[in-house]
């Protein structure tokens, strides 16, 4: 049992929810470092080194970071409180990179609320989606980190691999970002997933090349250390905590059947997160190779007409959970726990006492997507 985070008006734990505000995380508390000699250095929202619009205020007295504030610039209103089929389309587009995780978590919550039990094949299909998404996202994170180190050859090789994974996804599911793949009652799937073996081989070579480069790993080691036993995703796993929704989330049983094993590392720094991601890619590829998938249509047999449910899955950056209150065909209430909301906190507490040039490595190593943070549901 572990605490995961604030889910609307509830505090989400791995096995239950409690009404009210979550207790503060001790490890992420920051002292107030504002100094007399210091000033605020503004970075972003429009900068070459950042993928998304985010303003970052770095309190510093020169190169040394004494405090960090992250200001999301992508505040959006999303109209999900409507008919289920429509709202799924909106949820898909909250964060394109984590589209599958979001949608599956959302649909799982609805299914729980309405008492629908999807067939086994659908569950397998969802796992395939999420693992492919994980592979792609981990590769993107790794590419960003490698690029920040000016490590050009592996950077381009990773970009090539990302494109390859994207094409695999597009071929099998009809869309690179799984748009329109998942629905209440359907899972769209066109053809068998191929060429994963090839990706595996190429990936292994690139990955070994990267972590054999000592200058590169020197940049990551002891950078942004965070040891939070109630943390989520790669952040916790890099500090040797086996926190993973694949072990205790909605699809844990099937993961267990597939022989999933949690990857951990023992340093809790950016290097640890890099290694965890790197080896999770291999693990995901291994899981995928043991699955044979078909397209499925199923009839959604509702056991009840209204209800509430929570869907929690492991997104590439950690636990992702939706709380949904549904009545007939209409969504009444939606809460979201986005992994990035935790990761931003973890990032800003781990960044203190590091220096400016460590910033890109640490920032990218958390795999933060701002788009899922600034969402307001209507």
């Amino acid at each position, binding site marked *: 049992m572990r605490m995961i985070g604030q889910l609307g008006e509830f505090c989400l734990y791995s096995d239950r929810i409690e009404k009210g505000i979550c207790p503060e995380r001790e490890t992420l508390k920051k002292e107030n470092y504002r100094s007399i000699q210091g000033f605020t250095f503004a970075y972003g929202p429009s900068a070459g080194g950042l993928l998304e619009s985010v303003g970052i205020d770095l309190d510093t007295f020169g*190169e040394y970071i004494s405090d960090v504030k992250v200001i999301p610039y992508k505040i959006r209103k999303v109209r999900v409180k409507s008919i289920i089929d429509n709202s799924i389309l909106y949820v898909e587009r909250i964060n394109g990179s984590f589209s599958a995780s979001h949608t599956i978590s959302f649909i799982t919550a609805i299914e729980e609320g309405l008492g629908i039990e999807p067939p086994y094949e659908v569950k397998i299909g969802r796992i395939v989606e999420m693992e492919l998404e994980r592979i792609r996202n981990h590769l993107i994170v790794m590419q960003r980190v490698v690029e920040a180190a000016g490590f050009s050859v592996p950077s381009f090789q990773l970009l090539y691999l990302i494109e390859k994974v994207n094409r695999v996804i597009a071929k099998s599911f009809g869309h690179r970002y799984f748009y329109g793949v998942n629905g209440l009652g359907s899972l769209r799937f066109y053809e068998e997933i191929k060429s994963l073996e090839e990706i595996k081989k190429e990936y292994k070579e690139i990955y070994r090349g990267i*972590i*054999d480069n*000592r200058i590169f*790993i*020197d940049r990551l*080691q*002891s*950078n942004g*250390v965070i040891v939070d036993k109630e943390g989520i995703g790669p952040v916790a796993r890099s500090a040797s905590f086996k926190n993973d929704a694949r072990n205790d989330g909605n699809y844990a049983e099937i993961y267990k059947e597939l022989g999933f094993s949690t990857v951990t590392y023992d340093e809790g720094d950016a*290097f640890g997160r890099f*290694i965890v991601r790197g080896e999770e890619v291999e693990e995901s590829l291994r899981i995928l190779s043991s699955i044979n998938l078909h397209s499925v249509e199923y009839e959604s047999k509702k056991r009840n007409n209204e209800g509430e449910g929570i869907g929690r899955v492991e997104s590439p950056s950690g636990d992702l959970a939706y709380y949904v209150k549904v009545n007939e065909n209409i969504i009444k209430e939606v809460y979201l726990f986005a992994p990035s909301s935790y990761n931003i906190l973890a990032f800003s507490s781990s960044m203190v*006492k*590091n*220096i400016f*040039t*460590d910033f890109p490595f640490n920032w990218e190593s958390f795999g933060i997507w701002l788009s899922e943070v600034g969402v307001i549901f209507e």
Partner: protein
Amino acid sequence: MSEILDLMYILVIVLAFYVQGQAYYRPLVKAFGVQSTIIAVISFYFFLTTGIIDYIILGIILIAIRGVVTPLVLLKVLGGKYGEREKISGVASLLIVDMAFFFVAVLVIFIVAITKIFPNDLDLLFSFSLFFQGLFLIASRRSTPSQILGYLEEENAIVLLGISLIPIPLLIEVSIFLDVLGLVVISSVIILEKKEHLPIDELKG
């Protein structure tokens, strides 16, 4: 030709600097292997100039035991974890101290004093320098693998010194003795020892 010999000597010293400036264990061990191999090559060079067959034997022993077996044993003991390093602060400032002080000090001592005793063996400079660097490595590091490498480096210095001074059959015996001793030390110490895990502020930046 003597310039080439000098360059090989200086390569040995450069590798010692590299070892001093390296925090990661695996390249450290590999560098030691290369260093020993270069010393073996120096031994072969001496065979070319003197024609004494013992130099060949010494060279082969050096390559086999110090260039291959010892590093392999060390690498095996260290295991396969990626990115394992010694958590030392200011690797490079140690390197600078090593370079600026030990090398120059040895140079000065050598020119002032040792040349008076052995006026013709100017290459001794390098073995002395290597010896001091081995000592400095032991003194400046805390982890067992680095200290063992310092010890091995000192042995290399002794062999290097011996190549031009000690009668060669004796040197072979000495070097084999040292090798065996070294292997015993490695296997007994490292395997029993736990590697240290200390977070250190200085690594930032």
